[in-house]
């Protein structure tokens, strides 16, 4: 089905009629109004705005990258580039028989360590709960941290991962993208690392422009493919 897109700012009426409001919009009578700067989408009966700015709001099941900023007897505290602090309970790493007297939290994860984690639970009444109980989660042993605006993460991933695959293939780098806008790149070749950082910064700066995958490809020196992506894939 055709998707209608428009550039909107807060207060713009996107549509009127029996439609379902989703992210970054609110309903006033039968009008659906944008609440943030971004690109509006009307898809089937759903209206939403893809924001171009704003902080990261945790969502259950998001993969994020956090930085240890402190410990309490039973948990680690994480900076997750969000208004809220992330909590990782000690049991999640040590298992059920964790005892604060016998185990030392800082031996596993010390302050300043970067950790790939998943949001286990977040309901706005308490700070988000993290977990590292999954494949590929846990401490990031090596790599370079790059920060981009969290609202541009979907653009960096691309349609079914097209953008990130393009960058990974062209630079031979391993890229872990956190939904919170923190990205860890590890690469054997220093040149590839620099190229990957440059490509990610480019996506961050030009996220709202069409045909971005093609532009990134030409920047990385990859022959143009048959893809033609649209403004927000």
């Amino acid at each position, binding site marked *: 089905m055709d998707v209608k897109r428009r550039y909107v700012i*807060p*207060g713009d*009426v996107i549509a009127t009629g029996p439609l379902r409001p989703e992210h970054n919009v609110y309903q006033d009578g039968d009008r659906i109004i944008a609440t*943030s700067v971004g690109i509006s989408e009307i898809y089937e009966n759903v209206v939403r705005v893809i924001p171009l700015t704003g902080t990261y709001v945790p969502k259950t099941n998001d993969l994020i990258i956090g930085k240890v900023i402190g410990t309490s007897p039973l948990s680690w505290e994480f900076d997750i580039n969000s208004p809220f602090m992330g909590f990782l309970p000690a049991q999640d790493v040590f298992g059920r028989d964790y005892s604060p007297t016998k185990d030392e939290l800082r031996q596993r994860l010390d302050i300043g360590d970067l950790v790939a984690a998943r949001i286990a639970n977040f309901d*706005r009444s308490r700070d988000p709960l993290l977990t590292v109980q999954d494949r590929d989660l846990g401490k990031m042993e090596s790599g370079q941290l790059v920060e981009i605006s969290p609202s541009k993460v979907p653009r960096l991933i691309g349609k079914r991962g097209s953008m990130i695959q393009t960058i990974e293939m062209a630079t031979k780098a391993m890229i872990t993208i956190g939904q919170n806008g923190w990205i860890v790149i590890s690469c054997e070749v220093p040149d590839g690392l620099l190229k990957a950082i440059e490509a990610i910064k480019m996506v961050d700066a030009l996220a*709202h422009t069409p045909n971005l995958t093609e532009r990134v490809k030409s920047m990385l020196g990859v022959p143009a493919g048959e893809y033609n992506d649209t403004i927000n894939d």
Partner: protein
Amino acid sequence: MTQLMTEDGIRCDGRRVDELRDISLKVGVLKKANGSAYIEFGKNKIIAGVFGPRDVHPKHMANQDTGILRCRYHMSPFSVTERKNPAPSRREIEISKVIKEALQPAVILKDFPRTVIDVFVEVLQADGGSRCAALDAAAVALADAGIPMRDLVSACAAGKVADRIVLDVNNEEDQEGQADMPVALMPNVGKITLMQLDGILTPEEYKTCLHTAIGGCKRVYEIQRKALMEKYFQNGEQ
């Protein structure tokens, strides 16, 4: 006393009665703030920075159910002819409060419990109607920070000078005129979020004055809109 208006309705700075001063607005001027804006509203030069949502300090101010909004309006010592003491004056505390209350209905804070959104407004040069200009910049800075908002807030003053209702009162007219009415409006929602009146108006004058001010707000809104579009979409509407 200076002459505020000529016989044929030209004001002391050469404007007609229904004319705004020149306004230029730039979004995203501060790198370290989450959102920012710089406005030149006639001779007013005002910068606004928005931080947050972030942790509340002092902690007792935090609200478990919703985020809170804080606002600081401050005039630089060099913003006026005589040095202004940088300590917050009675007037600045009042303006901080009215700006906060004018922005409050527009921002949606329920998604950010236990956090604060700080709005800092610094007046670099003041020339009458600075609270309206500050509000215009603050609203745009909030949108730039990506804070969910029901609508932008546009503000503009109207007043009574030399027995006539005029739009966008400047410093001289504010000092020596008969009335000054700052108004802030959410243009799409169509609700007024700030209305003050300093001076005496008859009921008819009051009505025309309010309508003049609302007309001004709508023109300011177009400028705010253009500034945001320019930053985020470069070439405006697609």
